């Protein structure tokens, strides 16, 4: 092939060159088992874990129940705890029997019906139940407290309705929209799709490009007639498609295997995911251009993309509850915009005012990442 200047070159040649680049990169993906591992096996594992294993729904919690004084009433109250579907109960006479279990985490709490209970009850002096909980896990501790409270309230209501049949003065009727059974899988699975795309888009891409820099093949490519923009686009396109493929796999599994409802449109799903891959790929590119080393790239991708997608995105933890400074940081985490929108596409349907806003912000963040990546690539060559 004779040397052409890029100006006079035909369009066909440019397209051919670009196709060759895309093909080369695709071969690399197919040939290396580790990219398949990240794009297909890890998503399967993640979805599987969130679908079956890790759930925020509290099931039965082990507690110790101490009855310090036997009486029909205390026995009746104890039976209320034993019948509760929230607790697995071991009964004892003395709280010291369970103290070691609490330290070792064998029980999460000790419910004590104290000696004074009957006397207080008879005298109408607000009989009290003591609940000692393992505060080293605040979340479970809260659950134990709340469920203990609910069990007592339930027991009282039954007892009262036996006598006077009086319902509570004010009843709060609760309705959970979109997810009436409160299955945590229904919001964890859509969220984990965003994590998967972060891994493919940012981690995998940053590693691949960093390796090219590390080995000097990036400079070699720069020396060919391919322009920098073509080079980067040719590199990213296969990973963009890989990201979308692995997202599609996840969605199919979520819907058909885990029975997560899908109430929105496929168009919205792809519009959101494709836009999300822009900042994800841009960030991967930026990391690799800034580090040019696979070890550093992996560390940075872990710290700046993977962990934030997990922890700063509203996936597991409420953004509103975080300190203000950290709430500002979450504003530049692309997953923060994708995750609520994905949860909406799955559970609520198409709510375009929300989606367009998310798409606009993700696009903007993507542009910033690409601009920064382009700058640091050019600087390197000069």
């Amino acid at each position: 092939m004779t040397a052409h200047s890029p100006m006079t070159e035909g369009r066909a040649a440019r397209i051919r060159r670009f196709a060759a680049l895309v093909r080369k990169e695709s071969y690399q993906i197919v040939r290396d088992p580790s990219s398949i591992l990240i794009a297909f096996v890890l998503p399967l594992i993640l979805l599987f874990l969130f679908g079956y294993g890790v759930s925020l729904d509290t099931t039965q919690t082990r507690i110790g129940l101490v009855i310090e004084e036997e009486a029909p009433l205390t026995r009746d109250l104890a039976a209320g705890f034993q019948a509760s579907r929230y607790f697995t109960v071991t009964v004892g006479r003395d709280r010291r029997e369970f103290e070691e279990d609490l330290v070792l985490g064998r029980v999460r709490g000790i419910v004590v019906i104290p000696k004074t209970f009957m006397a207080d009850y008879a005298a109408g002096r607000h009989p009290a139940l003591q609940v000692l909980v393992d505060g080293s896990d605040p979340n479970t501790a809260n659950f134990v407290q709340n469920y203990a409270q609910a069990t007592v309230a339930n027991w009282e209501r039954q007892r009262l309705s036996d006598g006077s049949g009086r319902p509570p003065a004010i009843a709060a009727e609760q309705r959970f929209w979109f997810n009436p059974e409160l299955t945590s899988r229904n919001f964890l699975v859509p969220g984990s799709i965003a994590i998967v795309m972060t891994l493919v888009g940012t981690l995998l891409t940053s590693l691949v490009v960093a390796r090219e820099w590390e080995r000097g093949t990036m400079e070699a490519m720069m020396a060919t007639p391919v322009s920098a923009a073509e080079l980067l686009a040719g590199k990213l396109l296969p990973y963009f498609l890989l990201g979308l493929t692995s997202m599609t796999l996840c969605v199919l599994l979520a819907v058909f295997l885990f029975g997560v409802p899908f109430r929105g449109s496929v168009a919205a799903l792809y519009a959101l995911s494709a836009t999300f891959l822009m900042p994800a790929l841009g960030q991967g590119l930026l990391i690799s251009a800034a580090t040019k080393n696979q070890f550093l790239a992996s560390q940075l991708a872990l710290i700046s993309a993977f962990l934030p997608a997990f922890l700063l995105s509203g996936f597991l933890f409420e953004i509103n509850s975080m300190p203000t400074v950290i709430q500002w940081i979450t504003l530049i985490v692309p997953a923060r915009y994708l995750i609520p929108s994905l949860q909406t596409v799955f559970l609520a349907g198409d709510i375009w005012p929300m989606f367009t806003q998310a798409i606009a912000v993700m696009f903007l963040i993507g542009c910033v990442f690409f601009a920064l990546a382009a700058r640091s690539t050019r600087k390197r060559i000069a």
Partner: protein
Amino acid sequence: MWWTRLKALIVKELLAVLRDPKGRTVLIVPPILQLLVFSYAATLEVTNVDVMVLNRDNGHWSQELVNQIKGSPTFRSIRFTDSPAEVRMAIDTQKVIAVVEIGPTFSRDIEAARPAEVQVILDGRRSNASQIVSGYLSRIVGTLAADTPSGKRMASNAVSVVARNWFNPNLTYQWFMVPNLVASIALLIGLIVTALSIARERELGTFDQLMVSPLRTHEILIGKLIPPMMIGLFHITIYILAAVFIFGVPLRGSLLLLYGSAIFYLASVVGLGLFISALSMTQQQAILGAFLFMVPAMLLSGFATPIENMPAWLQPITYVNPLRYFLVIVKGVFLKDIPAVEVARQTIPLLLIAIVTLSAASWLFRRRLE
């Protein structure tokens, strides 16, 4: 003689990671930032809640309910509306997490001692947070109910529940989070640093040079084992200092037990890393392989959700996860002053994991030579 050789290899390994200023920075700055950011961010508490109220009642009791919600520190803002369409919009676009709907006869029902009702609509997309918000709202409604004429009549021998939290009286979330992060971040860094160590040599072609050096196979492995453990101990030390002096987490147990078990924990992490490294042909494979282990390890450790809540068939898988044991130790030593016997009981599996992974790594390593 063997010691000089080994020392040379250890120094070389440390230099490989620390020589590059970027490499040094990446091992020190981000882990500390992570500890600071994530220990404040990762909270399952729900605060600064935005709610909407649709009040069709204009009596005294509905006003009282609104005032009680306003007065609760958990709620950041209350929006008022009188149109159901706005309710739908606010929930759909997640402007609010809950809507309280008060019917037109609310106050009249209470005055007449008829059961009154409020409706609470919650966003099920965030079912965990909305359950907690629903708990807050129920408590407020319950307090109000106790103030009503019919509520007062019922209250005389109502049973109350007095809760006391051991080990963490105010349920401070950081006391839970920081010890968890100490163990998890050590895993993240330890695994990647080690996973790369053999794979990098192989990719750069220096592996053969190492093989023809006078070092024996087990010496090479020990040389690869010790530097990441030193880095890991350094991290753990920084985190323990930060936990105590920045976050004020009480260190109730013995520091000696913590360090003693940390050595076994790091040995098991590094063993896993070397095993992954010996399996991989390239650095990319090593890093991604480490990820493939790390992500499930984090989820199946009892960090985010208790292991006892997992389905029974999944629980045995957690036995091969070193994080699972070390989390019990770190949290136990910090908050509960668990006895040495319990620390030992959690350390033995770590030792077993270390022995198995290191033997497997050295077997793979030797096999690849032939």
